[in-house]
């Protein structure tokens, strides 16, 4: 029996603004298992970031609750790592400064955290860029820093919110390969958000489809293709067609 790491039960979220109340998430139940790479797949503006924020603790569900490793999520905390849609690196810190930020906050000694940060910088392939400022790096490299920063804090789960959404196609393919390489080396429970079907099938152990607002979970696919995956195999294309058909019907 696999261990459940994230348990969401009847999570709903509404936002109240001047223009009234919008119901974004509606009674979502979801379990994520240890070391699973779960992809949340849904159309634009359907509430993917909202759901991720509720699981991470950056926002609080209006009703229902989320637990991570048995602890109820109520506020941000270092057992959950986030890689953002729009890079949220600290621009005044170097690559090293960003990656070691978490351990530093939690009071780890300089030598130890430098070693740890260096390990993850090497892991994401940024060796030699330790002293560069984020503004001097390309979009792909910035997301690598984001991934290293989240990893370096050794969280139980990592949330990646469309981390490759702003990259050009070439870099995007490369980063997907890299993410799988990194994850196979350092297994973590990952929730990955995307609205790109190929990306979803390439990465996922399991894909969960979200509907338009108010969002619920619509369908689930276990992806058993062996890695490394290839976008052009018949199995890949067939899955792609199957899922697309369901998505098109629901929009």
């Amino acid at each position, binding site marked *: 029996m696999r261990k459940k790491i994230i348990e969401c039960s009847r999570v709903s979220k509404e936002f109240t603004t001047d223009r009234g109340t919008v119901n974004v998430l509606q009674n979502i139940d979801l379990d994520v298992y240890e070391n699973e790479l779960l992809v949340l797949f849904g159309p634009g503006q359907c509430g993917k970031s909202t759901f991720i924020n509720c699981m991470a603790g*950056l926002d609080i569900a209006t009703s229902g609750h989320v637990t991570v490793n048995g602890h109820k999520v109520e506020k941000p905390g270092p057992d959950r790592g986030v890689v*953002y849609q729009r890079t*949220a690196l*600290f*621009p*005044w810190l170097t690559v090293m400064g960003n990656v070691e*930020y978490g351990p530093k*906050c939690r009071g780890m000694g300089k030598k130890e955290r430098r070693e740890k940060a260096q390990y993850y910088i090497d892991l994401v392939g940024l060796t030699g860029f330790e002293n560069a*400022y984020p503004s001097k790096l390309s979009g792909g490299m910035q997301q690598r820093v984001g991934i290293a920063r989240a990893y370096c*804090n050794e969280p139980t789960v990592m949330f990646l919110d469309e981390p490759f959404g702003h990259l050009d196609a070439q870099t995007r393919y490369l980063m997907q390969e890299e993410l799988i390489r990194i994850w196979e080396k350092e297994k973590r429970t990952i929730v990955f958000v995307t609205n790109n079907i190929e990306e979803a099938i390439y990465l996922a152990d399991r894909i969960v489809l979200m509907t338009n607002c108010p969002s619920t979970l619509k369908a689930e696919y276990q992806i058993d293709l062996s890695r490394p995956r290839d976008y052009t195999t018949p199995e890949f294309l067939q899955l792609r067609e199957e899922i697309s058909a369901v998505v098109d019907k629901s929009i």
Partner: protein
Amino acid sequence: MKTRFRGASKYETAICAAISIFVFLCLWELAVRTTAVGLFISSPITVIGKTLRSIVEPLGTHTIQGHVLWSLSRVAVGFVVGSVAGVVVGVLMGWYRIFEAIVRPLFEVIRPIPPIAWIPLAILWFGLGESSKYFLIFLAVFSNVTMNAYSGARAVDQTLVGAAKMLGANNRQVFTSIVLPSCVPQIFAGLQIGLGSGWATVVAAEMVRSSEGVGWVITKGQDLNNPLQILVGIVGIGVIGYILAVLMRAIEAKLCVWSERGK
């Protein structure tokens, strides 16, 4: 032809500056020699000559650099105290709602009052000595630095605050490692304006009452009916003000390598 001035190199900018100053001096010289302007104002050659001569021949009790140092030392005191206080008040006001609610109304009333309007009160409170001058410069620096630090702290990117919390930062760490550094470019803009304004205020303060400093050089020139000395004072103020601005920009470029402003 399209010239992108933003893209001009340091070298080009320096050449342009040199040419523009040189042309201005030539026009001035020409006007003095050929028109009635010469009756009211000395030629630039005379002014520069006198300025250079006053490096060795004292004006009153000090040489020109002595006067400049006196004024600079006054600015330094007011500037240091004013910037520290300004950064503290501005950042707290921008980050803590309650502090903002309490302090901002007071600050908004005091801010539009020009420092020279305080001169009479400053003299009543602190006398004619150094303290009243420090106080005036302090006010000039403080209001500019506070205003900028405040708008900097208000504009802190909430995503970064969230990211820091997710990485385990507590409230104090968020304040020192996210809020403060985010404000640095804005604080620097404030320090620059504050220093310029402090330098302008020291002149005004010295013109009221002092026995040394560039402000004194000017008022004394007026008493002695000596426009040349007034011009020497003015040149001194302009040159030093310019050097201060250049220095501040150099320091900013060093400290803010990461930001757009610093480039």
